[in-house]
């Protein structure tokens, strides 16, 4: 799907690249990921704090070089944040804690 934000960025970068000739360490991100399935699962594990060894470097590499990975990472991050902020606030009914303490007292 065409995305104006990306296209504008790509245009700018392309222009810059054209002027500078080819730059090996270009921040250009590829628009296709060669292995979304593997990459996305990896990104999710990193976000879950489960992958430690070499995870940081791998993540930086993906975010720098792959647009689908970049987008997926930020989407997953946003979902986690919204879930945590919006779905954990079920108000505790009045006196529930109190009645549990009472039940324990009685059971002793």
């Amino acid at each position, binding site marked *: *799907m*065409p995305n*104006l934000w990306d296209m504008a960025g790509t245009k700018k970068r392309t222009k810059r690249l054209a002027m500078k000739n080819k730059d090996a360490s270009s921040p250009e991100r590829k628009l296709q990921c060669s292995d*979304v*399935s593997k990459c*996305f*699962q990896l990104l*999710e*594990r990193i976000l*879950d*704090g*489960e992958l430690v060894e070499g995870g940081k470097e791998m993540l930086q590499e993906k975010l720098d070089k792959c647009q*689908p990975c970049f*987008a*997926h990472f*930020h*989407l*997953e*991050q*946003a*979902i*986690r*944040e*919204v*879930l*945590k*902020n*919006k*779905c*954990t*606030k*079920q108000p*505790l*009914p009045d006196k*529930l*804690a109190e*009645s*549990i*303490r009472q*039940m*324990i007292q009685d*059971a*002793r």
Partner: protein
Amino acid sequence: MSEVHRRKYSQEERSVIFDGEFMPHIDSMYNFAFRLTFDEDDAKDLVQETYMKAFRFINSFEQGTNAKAWLFRILKNSFINDYRKKSKKPVTVDYQEVETFYNSDDVDYQSTSDLRAESVKDMLGDEISNALNDLAVDFRTVIILADLEGFTYEEMAKILDIPIGTLRSRLHRARNLLKDKLKGYAQSMGYGRDEEEN
């Protein structure tokens, strides 16, 4: 249970553990119970029952280990044993839904690739809550444990009594299903459709 002979806690120790290590988790416990049962009274009963069991079996809790995970495991087992049975809501997994996702590996990303972080951030809260509630209970549970409560994979595997590999793939499927539902909301909000982008 380990073969180590469990000591018995004194009455005073029991009070210290109960008040100091169990009670602080009551908000998370209630939130979990409510998201499993969708009913305030059932959630209340479930939490009460869990705490009663926790007290009764307090000697099998090892002080200094993760009390929250231990409590969540009791709550989840109580839910399966009591509430799932009497619940009128169909709580079994929607197999068509599961099958679609189990049989597709790369395909599933295409369906959510046009959901963007920005549109998720703009959601008010009801959408995400509804999307979560819409998931079959097994998928809903892993999202709650992982994203709402921040349990590690290892802790979740123990809470649910499943191998870590199963946990990992269930969580991944759950996330894809959730994104799919969110995509529906995002579209109805006017995001993600070609003709509405300018």
